């Protein structure tokens, strides 16, 4: 038993630190774990802004992460409903009707999507 342990201690390879600089050409590491697939905040912001910019009634130059749909972009309440549906389709979410009614502006939408556990 003790012999086995000493043998293993002798044979075990010490783990060296893994520097980011060593894989510089690869970009980001793609670790295939299923537990860290939650979106990053920047990702969510980029995708939500893309959805809003591709809406035909919206002027893409005015879209920032802080816009209010009705006050800043001059949209209708029905247009807000359409934008929320487009965000639902983009992130494969199902938002209950009462919650969807409250999403009125861009920061609210980003917060909701980011905090939802099932957004992908």
């Amino acid at each position, binding site marked *: 038993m003790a012999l086995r342990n000493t043998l293993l201690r002798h044979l075990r390879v010490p783990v060296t630190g893994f520097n980011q600089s060593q894989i510089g050409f690869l970009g980001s590491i793609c670790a295939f774990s299923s537990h860290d697939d939650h979106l990053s905040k920047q990702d969510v912001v980029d995708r939500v802004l893309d959805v809003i910019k591709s809406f035909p009634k919206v002027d893409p130059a005015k879209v920032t992460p802080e816009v209010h749909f009705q006050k800043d972009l001059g949209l209708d309440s029905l247009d807000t409903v359409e934008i*929320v549906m487009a965000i639902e389709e983009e992130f494969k979410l*199902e938002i209950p009707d009462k919650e969807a009614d409250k999403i009125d502006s861009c920061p609210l939408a980003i917060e909701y999507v980011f905090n939802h556990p099932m957004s992908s």
Partner: protein
Amino acid sequence: MSGVSTAAYFARRAAQKERVRILYRRALKDTLNWAVHRHIFYRDASDLREKFNANQDVEDVDRIDKLIAHGEAEYDKWRHPDPYIVPWAPGGSKFCRNPTPPAGIEIVYNYGQEDNP
């Protein structure tokens, strides 16, 4: 009486606006259920939007109530029998499929081999 805008009037109008928004949302989802191909869906969605826009300037509260009731009856008539629901949502196929185990349960990783670790 019709010229006085009290808080009750505004509350009633706000409730009506919320009903209209929820009705539009459900009707749009239903349109997507029926018209799966996008070019057909866009055409049907703009028709739906025209129907809603045609009545947007009505001021009489009772008439608005009647229009909303009529709209909800239309929605009930046209509901899809097999709507698309996101899998993990209630009604979807993955709902409650793998619930989180109760607290205190853990996995024993060396079962049967506790004698020789």
